[in-house]
């Protein structure tokens, strides 16, 4: 029991870093959870950010902006060139449009050689092309309606109405992809769990394993198995505590709790936590100095998160990254979330859960074997 109690006493030393990592994870979860639309099984256009500088301020330019605004986000503030570059670089906006003075007049006069709208975008980005295609479609259609004898306001209304008609688009997928907040929020949980475990539980186990303390406990009357099981029990309890806190906070943030898919996600979280604890046990066998915990925390948590599709969706990663990712539990955690998103049940995610556990077991066994080998070498 004394080992168990001491574990928590030593752990209290790390409360500051636990609070810190929890705060960071929550900040990321909160910000990222604000960025997704609610579930939609039908077609919708992908919105882009567009910065517009309207030097014309004519009926036509306002009509164009109003049309673009029906699909995209328009930023019309007075931005500096640097701010504009920042926004395009960080993909907040895909295009910077400058509508020249006299654009509306030239458009209405139909000279056949219209003034052009300057569109600055990152070279070759699809998002940039999409906005340009939307502009051209609207302006061409409006111009042609006007050629057909309609006034600008009539043509503008007809174009907008007809361009908004999405009836020609059919979604042929049988599965309905849900895109609710709960998925975004829970996708990030492995990062939070890994950082919390690596920054708090790992250094505590490492402290128990430092040479002098380990020797001292080794010669005590406490059987080694008992000591190890006390450590494991304490680690498990701390982890359960962390899971509960994270699940409750995430559920509150996503506004969903005790639904069928919530239960599936919770199972995924629990299985991942078990895997994470096994990783921690493996790491502790490598005789790392507890002082190195912050560096290890970041190396493990960041690499697992980036390669496992926690921060950047897996489909965006390069081929090698995807290939490596498949060997990480975070990948299979995200994959399980994806399957739940597509309406998958426990049977569909069972393989993902199994691979996570298998990874954990494998790493733990390697760690323990290494630890035993080291011990023999030392003897």
């Amino acid at each position, binding site marked *: 029991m004394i080992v168990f109690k001491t574990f928590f006493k030593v752990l209290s030393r790390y409360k*500051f870093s636990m609070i810190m990592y929890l705060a960071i994870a929550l900040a990321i979860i909160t910000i990222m959870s604000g960025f997704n639309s609610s579930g939609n099984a039908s077609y919708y256009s992908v919105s882009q950010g567009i910065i517009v500088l309207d030097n014309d301020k004519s009926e036509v330019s306002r009509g164009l902006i109003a049309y673009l605004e029906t699909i995209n986000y328009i930023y019309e503030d007075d931005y500096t060139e640097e701010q504009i570059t920042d*926004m395009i*670089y960080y993909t907040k906006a895909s295009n910077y449009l400058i509508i020249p003075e006299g654009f509306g007049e030239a458009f209405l006069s139909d000279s056949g050689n219209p003034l052009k709208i300057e569109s600055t975008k*990152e070279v070759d980005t699809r998002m940039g*092309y999409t906005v340009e295609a939307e502009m051209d479609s609207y302006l*061409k259609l409006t111009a042609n309606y006007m050629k057909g004898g309609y006034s600008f306001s009539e043509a503008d209304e*007809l174009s907008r109405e007809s361009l908004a008609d999405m009836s020609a688009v059919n979604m042929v997928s049988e599965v309905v992809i849900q895109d609710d907040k709960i998925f975004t929020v829970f996708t990030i949980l492995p990062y939070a769990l890994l950082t919390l475990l690596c920054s708090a539980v790992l250094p505590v186990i490492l402290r128990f394993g430092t040479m002098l303390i380990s020797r001292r406990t080794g010669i005590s009357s406490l059987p080694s198995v008992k000591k190890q099981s006390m450590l494991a029990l304490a680690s498990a309890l701390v982890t359960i505590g962390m899971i509960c806190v994270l699940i409750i906070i995430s559920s509150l943030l996503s506004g969903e709790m005790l639904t069928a898919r919530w239960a599936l996600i919770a199972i995924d979280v629990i299985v991942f936590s078990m895997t994470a604890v096994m990783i921690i046990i493996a790491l502790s066998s490598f005789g790392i100095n507890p002082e190195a915990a912050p560096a290890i925390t970041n190396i493990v948590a960041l690499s697992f998160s980036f390669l496992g599709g926690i921060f950047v969706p897996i489909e965006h990663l*390069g081929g090698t990254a995807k290939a490596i990712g498949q060997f990480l539990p975070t990948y299979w955690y995200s994959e399980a979330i994806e399957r739940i998103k597509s309406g998958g049940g426990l049977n569909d995610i069972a393989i993902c859960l199994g691979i996570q556990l298998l990874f954990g077991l494998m790493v733990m066994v390697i760690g323990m074997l290494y630890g035993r080998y080291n011990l023999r070498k030392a003897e």
Partner: protein
Amino acid sequence: MFLNILCKKLKICVNNKQNIFWTLMFPIILGTLFTIAFGGIFESYKFEQVKTAVVFDTDNEQVVENAKTFLEGISNDGKKLLDIQYLEYDEAEALLKDGEKVNGIIRVKEDGKLTLDILSNGVLSTIQQSIVTGYNQNVTMIEKVAKEHPEKLYEVIKGVSENTSYVLPKSLGGDNKDPFISYFYNLLAMTTLFASMHSLRIGNNTQANMSKVGARANASPVRRMSFQIAGFIASFLVSLAVVEIGLTVMIFILRVEFGGNILMIYLTSALAALLGVSLGFFVGNLGSFSLDKKEGILVGITLLGCALSGLMYGDMKIIIAEKAPFINKINPAAVISDSYYALNMFGVGGRFFETVMYMVGLSLILTIGGLLLGRKVSYDSI
């Protein structure tokens, strides 16, 4: 005397192998993983022709011809938008469902209109939708004009067939426009800030109430300032070496393109190392906390700073720039990553010098702050 202190402080820093190992391995390991993870993402953002299957559900030759001419003629900035395969519906559907080998199926209907079958929403689908809707609306329009203003029909048909563009495409300036490179900027920022662990001990090692060697140093005839400055220089030299080695590995082995003049990138890293050391120095002199607590504070500042400057979620920096811009000015990680970014996107110029000023300014404030905090000469208790 000062040189001897500096020399020994340098030895102390260099012999702290564990610290050096981790601060060096950190950018190398994560840099390698980032290279693997982000290597292909930006390429996938770049425009490539949208693979489209076209299926004719009609035998009307005029309709087929019109649709073919329209779909094959669509271009932007001289580049064709669609990569078309003419297929039977079953073949097209198989390709669509087999990992989206085509992004969508455009079906040409009997009434001359087009429909689009897609599997999922996305930018490519939006482009296809825009094309299909545009075409259909032209058909609708022609029908409408034919009914309401038949005298104008010729002009309208002429207008539709004209390939007028209202857009003058321009591209953004800068060297490497890959937004994912900013993850490397943040990684370098984190490396320099973690390297500040070297300077964290200076404060404790010169205060009599915080360490045994501090007490001995205070009993000696050497001024506190000399220990502080020698420690600062030694930590800076070690941090500089660690950061520049990490940077060299990233540039020459991992082939990360930071963008901008390479010498200036190294210089920026040197300033970043200075900022990191100043931060560690400041926290090290902050009150009479134990080294552990100070380490916690430093790790907290580093991680929170890097999270806010976009290490985990790339767009965080721009969000902060909008919601609370002052945070980006005082957050050391944001200041460091912004200076690499400025060098890349704007070159050596006003924006870059502004970030340099921030780095130097923050370093000065933190160093002077550290010196002021650490100037206490005697203690109420030891």
